[in-house]
């Protein structure tokens, strides 16, 4: 789960991470008042959307007076921001963070995450920060330095000082940085974070560190022990259909084609999508039924999919397992079709446990469907029918 910059900064402030003075505003008037209250002579106004690369996309503006802050906020709030990380649809800006602009000579990049390969929490960093960090690291991997935490004792003082030295930080600055890194690690562990990224971490002309931008993500599987973090979820940033599907034990991702895709299992789904696109088809969505789903939940999810007017044909490719047999899926589809009276053609490929039973159930319920013997046939039929329906 991702949270907004202003939320992440509120959390890290509690951990003693040095931040610019600021707050969040949801109107141009509130932004102007906030600038006045913060004081100073120059402010940054930053669009609050759950994605990075906002700067180059015009999501960060500067103001030299409260009036300019009002204008900058008016140019952001209510507008759609599309960045390199959002996808083409982008997100509508509803709030801006207003903070004092920090003059700085230099900045560094630092992040805490779990290194999947070693299974350790790791700090990674680069001696110069900025939004072009990925491109620079791709050209020169030696820019990125890394240190791994001991799973029991975390980072030693020597680890952190060594890391600071590799980021070309010296003297008091190195000590301040080591203390800051220790706090980031502490927050990461205490909150079951999956990412804390500070980019840029500014070094001011008074040789102080200030975290100018912060990104935090949390492990969805650990939210059960952090209800306060779970409460930070911004429902407006998720697709309502995706959220509704999740309530019915479905992972649903909206895409922009015309073939509804229903599978059980992420691997099977990705593999089916690959074949579908290779065959010239385009998926309208990716719907993955979780093993715990009941037939009623599957029915609800299927109805959501059928409600999309772009869907010309539905491709169901399920492999019945030890937990979710195919007949449960067939029952769910029947419920959805009875409820919605949809005439959308359905290509049905079922294999594994209770596959025959599932086809029998659909026939007994009088549900018209096009049976497919295997994945390849199912994909071919769905693409063919989709073309016919679109014509």
């Amino acid at each position: 789960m991702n949270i907004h910059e202003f939320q992440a900064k509120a959390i890290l402030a509690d951990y003693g991470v040095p931040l610019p003075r600021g707050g969040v505003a949801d109107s141009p008037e509130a932004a102007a008042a906030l600038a006045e209250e913060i004081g100073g002579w120059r402010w940054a106004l930053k669009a609050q959307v759950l994605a990075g690369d906002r700067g180059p996309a015009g999501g960060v503006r500067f103001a030299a007076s409260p009036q300019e802050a009002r204008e900058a906020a008016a140019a952001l709030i209510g507008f759609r921001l599309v960045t390199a990380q959002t996808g083409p649809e982008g997100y509508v800006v509803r709030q801006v963070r207003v903070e004092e602009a920090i003059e700085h000579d230099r900045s560094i990049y630092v992040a805490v995450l779990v290194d999947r390969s070693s299974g350790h929490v790791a700090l990674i960093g680069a001696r110069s920060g900025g939004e072009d960090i990925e491109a620079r690291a791709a050209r020169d991997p030696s820019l990125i330095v890394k240190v791994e935490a001991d799973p029991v004792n975390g980072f030693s003082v020597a680890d952190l000082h060594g890391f600071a030295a590799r980021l070309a930080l010296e003297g008091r600055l190195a000590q301040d940085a080591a203390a800051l890194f220790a706090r980031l690690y502490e927050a990461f562990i205490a909150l079951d974070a999956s990412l804390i990224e500070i980019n840029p971490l500014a070094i001011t002309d008074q040789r102080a560190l200030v975290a100018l931008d912060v990104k935090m993500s949390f492990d969805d599987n650990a939210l059960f022990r952090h209800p306060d973090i779970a409460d930070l979820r911004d429902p407006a940033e998720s697709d309502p259909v995706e959220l509704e599907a999740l309530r019915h034990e479905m992972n649903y991702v909206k895409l922009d084609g015309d073939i509804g895709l229903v599978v059980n299992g992420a691997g099977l789904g990705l593999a089916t999508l690959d074949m579908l696109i290779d065959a010239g088809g385009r998926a309208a969505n990716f719907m993955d039924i979780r093993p715990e789903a009941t037939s009623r939940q599957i029915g609800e999810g299927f109805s959501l999919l059928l409600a999309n007017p772009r869907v010309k044909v539905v491709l169901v490719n399920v492999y019945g397992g030890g937990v979710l047999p195919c007949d449960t899926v067939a029952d769910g589809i029947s419920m959805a079709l009875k409820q919605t009276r949809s005439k959308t053609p359905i290509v049905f490929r079922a294999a594994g446990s209770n596959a025959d039973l599932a086809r029998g159930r659909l026939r007994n319920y009088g549900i018209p469907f096009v049976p497919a013997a295997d994945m390849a046939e199912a994909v071919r039929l769905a693409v063919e029918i989709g073309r016919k329906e679109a014509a």
Partner: protein
Amino acid sequence: MGVLIGPETRLLCQGMTGRMGTFHCERMIAYGTRLVGGVRPGKGGKRHLGLPVFDSVAEGAAATGANVSAIFVPPDNAAAAMIEAIEANVPLVVCVTERVPVLDMVRVRHALKGSRTRLIGPNSQGLLAPGSCKIGVMPSIHERPGRIGIVSRSASLTSEVVEQTSRLRLGQSTTVGVGGDPVHGLGFAACLELFLADPGTDGIILIGEIGGVEEEEAADFLRSARPKKPVVGFVAGRHAPRRRRMGHAGTINIFGRGDAEGKIEALRQANVFIAPDAASIGETMRGALTS
């Protein structure tokens, strides 16, 4: 033959008395797996499914001679269950639990270091040795004893490939689900090593997907191991939609790009036969065996 499990397996189940545990234990027993007991703290001394229940893994393993433990406990207690089995020196632990917190797995990985335990999972469908032993939640309909080893990150695709290899009369020596979580136990490279050393396995199918670096690590291993058996690889997600991202850390290149192209290229350079799509993985293996 095969790897990790077989007729010599004596299985203990942590969480046997729960709903999931009971459901799957009944099916494992019906398959012929030698389940010798269960563990449920507080229920020691009772019996369940006609088998003894113990308060702890150490007690259960000592009393039954169990050499494998299967874990069917909810996510909030799964890490504690894994660590208990590791501390009891159980040689093989299989965890099917989904949604285990990542930082819990960091602690489990630490407990594994220097232990004599191999861990499969979590979020694994388990292991299947056709005809002799089933540990996990996979369907057992189309598998048949044979000489192809399957190691996979995806439960559903494993079933698909089991059916394909059975239809081609290749069969399977063992199927291993390494699990879908970012931090887990045995990985692709370690499983490949086991299959390469197994005289009962003639060819290995590796089923990967986008994300992480495990396919790349498997490719590194194969380049140095120079296997004499054919290895077929498949990576799901060539056309996966790009998801919204937060920040840069996930894509900074010391962690690998995570995309399918990079993984396929790494495997190809390690002389792995690449299956063009999921429907032709079995056929690709048949071709590789005769080439």
